[in-house]
Each structure stands twice: as structure tokens, then as C-alpha cells.
């Protein structure tokens, strides 16, 4: 049985001009390099959430009556911030259709972890020795170091934020111990809010 001839639809697009194709290729190369080379899933909203949590923790820590309540406020805020930032980063990466732990994502994670482990060990040592006045400055500096190291695989505001954290941390170490909470609020609250807003505006999330 002969089938009736099917009318062919013209599906081919008109050919691109050579110049346009070359421009398009260069754009594609640049975009692919940017997407694969930088970790762009740092969520602006996640960083803002970390700032809000830190400011709430600063209020709680300011009113804390003993060391454990103070420590509980800040460590609780750290845990909550980690959870919020991870959730929002995962959401951003899903929206972009790229798994969170691709090459640059893995590098980002590996760079964040060592300074944070050092921070945990130093916290234990300071508690043991009763040198708790060193904690705010050490936390800020080590978090800054983690952000600078990880930020080398991320968008530009991230390493800059790390440098400022280290600067605030240094100031906290040199300032009177009673100013510790103010520096923590300025760093973990203020810097996160400011940079979170910039990242959210420029890079989304």
C-alpha cells in the first residue's frame, strides 16, 4: 500500500552570518567557562538569612547571664545559619539546573571546611583555658579565612566579604573583650546583610 506523500515542513532556520556565529561562539565559550569555573550557587537570600539570625543571636547573647547561655546563643545561630544557607544554596542550584556539588562546588566546600574545623578546635581550647574573650575575634577571623579561601572559586563579592570578616576579627581581638558581641553583630550580622543584598541583586538566589 502506498502511503500518501507527507508534506515536508521547512524546519531549518536561516544560516547565521559568519560574524554572528563567531560572536555567538565566543559568548558560549565565555559563559561555559564562567559557569564551570565559578561556584555561583552562593545564595544572596541565604547570606541575608545568616545576617538576620546573627543579629537575633547578638541580642540573645547580649542578655545572656552566663557563659553557656552566651555560647548556646552563638553556636545555635551558627547551626541555624548553616542549615538556612545550605537549603537556599541547594534551591538556587536546582533552579539553575546544576548540581550543588559539581567541580567548583566541591572545591568551595573543601575550602570552607578546614578553617571551620580549626575554629571548633580553638573554641574547645579557649573554653578549657578560660580564654573565652578570644572567641569572637577568632571566630570572625577563621570564618573570614574560610570565606576568602572558598570565595576564590565563587563570585567576586564572596572573597571580599571574607577579607572584611578577617579585618573585623582582627579589630575584635585588639579591642576590649566587652566589645565582643558588638563585633560579632557587625560581622556576622552587618557584613552578611550587606553582602547578602549585593549577591542577591547581582547573582540572584
Amino acid at each position, binding site marked *: 500500500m502506498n502511503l500518501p506523500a507527507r508534506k515536508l515542513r521547512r524546519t531549518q532556520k536561516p544560516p547565521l*552570518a*559568519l*560574524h554572528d556565529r*563567531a*560572536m555567538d*561562539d*565566543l559568548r*558560549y*565559550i565565555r559563559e*561555559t*567557562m564562567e*559557569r*564551570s*569555573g565559578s561556584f555561583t550557587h552562593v545564595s544572596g537570600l541565604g547570606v541575608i538569612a545568616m545576617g538576620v539570625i546573627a543579629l537575633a543571636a547578638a541580642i540573645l547573647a547580649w542578655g545572656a547571664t552566663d557563659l553557656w547561655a552566651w555560647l548556646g546563643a552563638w553556636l545555635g545561630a551558627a547551626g541555624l545559619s548553616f542549615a538556612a544557607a545550605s537549603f537556599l544554596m541547594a534551591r538556587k542550584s536546582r533552579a539553575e*539546573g*546544576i*548540581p550543588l556539588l*559539581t*567541580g*567548583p562546588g566541591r572545591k568551595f566546600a573543601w575550602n570552607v571546611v578546614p578553617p571551620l574545623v580549626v575554629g571548633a578546635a580553638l573554641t574547645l581550647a579557649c573554653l578549657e583555658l578560660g580564654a573565652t574573650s578570644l572567641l569572637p575575634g577568632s571566630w570572625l577571623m577563621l570564618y573570614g579565612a574560610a570565606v576568602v579561601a572558598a570565595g576564590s572559586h565563587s563570585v567576586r563579592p564572596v572573597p571580599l566579604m571574607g577579607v572584611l570578616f578577617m579585618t573585623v576579627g582582627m579589630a575584635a581581638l585588639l579591642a576590649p573583650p566587652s566589645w565582643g558581641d558588638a563585633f560579632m553583630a557587625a560581622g556576622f550580622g552587618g557584613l552578611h546583610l550587606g553582602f547578602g543584598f549585593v549577591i542577591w541583586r547581582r547573582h540572584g538566589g
Partner: protein
Amino acid sequence: MAAERGAASARRAREGGEDQTGLSPVEGYPEGGALELDRVIHERVRLGIVSALAVNGSLTFTDLRALLGTTDGNLSAHARRLEDAGYVLCKKTFDGRTPRTEYRLTAVGRRELEAYLAHMEAIIHATREQPEGSE
């Protein structure tokens, strides 16, 4: 060793015609001139693989698939073509029981990408210099 083999294959390819070579003259430009395109990386997925590997030491098959938004079969075929040309190196290992395929750009691949970028820039430059209505 594999890179040398691949470089030789790419060289052979360049000396032959478009069918085996991977190279073809750009329309409107003299054959054998500076504006010949490397067909091995001119294709979009292969260009994406080479570009991504140029800024990363190595990337896994899964990373590349996610980054380029392509299928397993498609990526595999294009990666094989690049491997045969000596532009990328492929290393297969096991992460526990899970097979892991990792790709790296070879020196040949990096050089060819740079040459390709130079060709693209030359095309843009040449077409800009052409007086209007001369085509």
C-alpha cells in the same frame, strides 16, 4: 602517549579533507588560509567540553553532563571524538563500586582551543573590516 597519538591523529586530520579531518574552510575565505575552522571543537557540545576543561583541572562525566545539559549518549560520543583527536584525556576509576569517568584537557586540546579562539576573533575582525555591500 595517548596525547601524542591524538595529536598525530589531529595533524593527519588537518592534512586530509573535511570528511576525515575535522577541518573545513570557512565559506567565503580562501582554502588553506588562516580562517580554517577546527571541526573537532567547532561543534557546540565539544566546544563546551573543551571550554569547561580549560578552566578546571578535571571534570567528571556527571559534572560535564550537568553543565552542558546533554544526554549520556550525546556527551559520551562527543567526548570520545575529542579523546580520539587527543584533545582530552579520559581516566576511568572506581569510587567504591561506582565507576567514575574523569576528563582533563591535554596540551594539544588547550592549544587548539586557543587557535579556535584566535580564528573566531580573526573572523570577527575580518568581517568588521569588510566594506558594506561587498558580500
